[in-house]
């Protein structure tokens, strides 16, 4: 296969990393990167932290590769939303019937924040946090809000927004339908420690209760949230931290296999000449022996590079390498820096390996049979990183945690 033109769809962390990696591997063909956004998307982690808190200028929240677009000889096309794709002919269709064909395609369209209801049915004052505009709009409303903030969902982004707003002095209620925060990814004792952290800082954390409706006041602005148990929580501003859905609408009818993202093999290949990376990629991770889709910053970099290398391997006839990964991410809440290596589930056994659960510094390892599926460290960065390195060698419990 001749690789004269590669089109990367998505100019955020995964897409730009993939583009840079193609060049670093020595490929010098026509490199097009398209994104629906009118400007290069911001680096997202600060959006629920420093940018929302006002301690980081929005210009500082930029993509790590933003300065290297020219040097990398990237034909960057912003304001280009892709609306259709054919996996057979690699035809990329834009909104105005304009088309582009490519020899290789890297899908890096990330994910979209989930809204609690169709947007036009929601009162003013309801937000999500995914883009720089989202973060600035929320900040502007919080700066002038007279009343409390209600956060729907106690996942990582919801919990960060709650922490940032609480630190700024707002009254905050956080509502989580599951019995504990972060229940999908962490065993309940750990979620309970996160709930306690927020309560200790004065957040009203309500778990095991969903929301029934988001209610508008006379002026059409949000006034309260009604919970599934009938109680009513006053709200001047509402933030939905309900998770994100992979951005795959543009791929319907493309011939690619879809389902919780773009379904790839263990090498990130989705179809001949098509690879995927970042939040949108669903692949079989050989390290864990399971399919996963990972919405984490470092994963966007790791998988971005792997998707580029995979495409070149196909073109060059080299043997494809599986993308074996131990995911790693961080989350900042108050003075706690949480870091997690691995991919535990809510059903794994939690074993405290350092300090005391919920203390200022501690670490917990997650056990499934004789394997360690993850290590969560609170203000123990060294331990998190050492654990990650060990996990890349072997997940055997004794190897990661010591007998």
């Amino acid at each position, binding site marked *: 296969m001749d690789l004269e033109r590669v089109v990367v769809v998505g100019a955020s962390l995964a897409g730009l990393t993939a583009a840079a990696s193609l060049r670093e591997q020595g490929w010098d063909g026509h490199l097009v990167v398209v994104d629906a956004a009118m400007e290069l998307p911001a680096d997202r982690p600060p959006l629920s932290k420093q940018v929302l808190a006002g301690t980081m200028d929005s210009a500082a929240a930029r993509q790590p590769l933003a300065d290297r677009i020219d040097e990398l000889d990237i034909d960057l096309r912003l304001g280009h939303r892709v609306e259709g794709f054919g996996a057979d002919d690699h035809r990329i269709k834009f909104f105005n019937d304009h088309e582009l064909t490519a020899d290789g395609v890297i899908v890096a369209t990330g994910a979209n924040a989930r809204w609690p209801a169709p947007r036009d049915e929601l009162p003013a004052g309801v937000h999500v946090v995914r883009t720089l505009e989202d973060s600035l709009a929320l900040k502007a409303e919080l700066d002038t809000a007279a009343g409390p903030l209600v956060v729907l969902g106690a996942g990582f982004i919801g919990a960060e927004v709650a922490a940032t707003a609480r630190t700024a002095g707002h009254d905050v209620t956080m509502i989580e339908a599951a019995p504990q925060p972060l229940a999908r990814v962490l065993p309940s004792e750990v979620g309970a420690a996160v709930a306690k952290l927020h309560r200790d800082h004065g957040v009203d954390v309500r778990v095991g209760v969903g929301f029934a409706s988001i209610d508008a006041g006379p002026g059409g602005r949000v006034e309260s949230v009604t919970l599934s148990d009938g109680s009513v929580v006053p709200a001047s501003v509402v933030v939905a931290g309900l998770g994100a859905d992979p951005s795959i609408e543009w791929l319907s009818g493309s011939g690619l296999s879809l389902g919780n993202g773009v379904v790839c093999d263990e090498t990130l290949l989705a179809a001949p000449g098509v690879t995927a990376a970042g939040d949108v990629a669903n692949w079989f991770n050989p390290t864990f022996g399971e399919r996963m889709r990972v919405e984490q910053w470092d994963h966007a970099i790791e998988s971005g590079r792997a998707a580029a290398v995979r495409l070149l391997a196909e073109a060059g006839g080299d043997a494809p390498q599986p993308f074996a990964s131990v995911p790693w991410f961080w989350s900042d809440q108050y003075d706690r820096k949480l870091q997690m290596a691995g991919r535990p589930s809510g059903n794994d056994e939690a074993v405290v390996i350092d300090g005391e659960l919920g203390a200022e510094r501690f670490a917990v390892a997650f056990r499934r049979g004789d394997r360690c599926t993850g290590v969560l460290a609170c*203000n123990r*960065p*060294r331990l998190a990183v050492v654990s990650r390195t060990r996990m890349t060698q072997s997940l055997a419990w004794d190897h990661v945690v010591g007998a």
Partner: protein
Amino acid sequence: MKIVIDYDLCESNAVCMGIAPEVFDVRDDDLLYLLDENPGDDLRPKVEEAARRCPKQAILIQD
């Protein structure tokens, strides 16, 4: 190769240490120590990798 850390940006999350422990060390006091400010060229790929994956973009490589 000379390495400079922007300590105003660095938040000691130890990502760099995971990639190049010969050069970067985050100790139990939660501070990052540069073990080698002028590592040899054999370490360049690892140091470049660490610079790229630093979530705060706090590692500068001066050639």
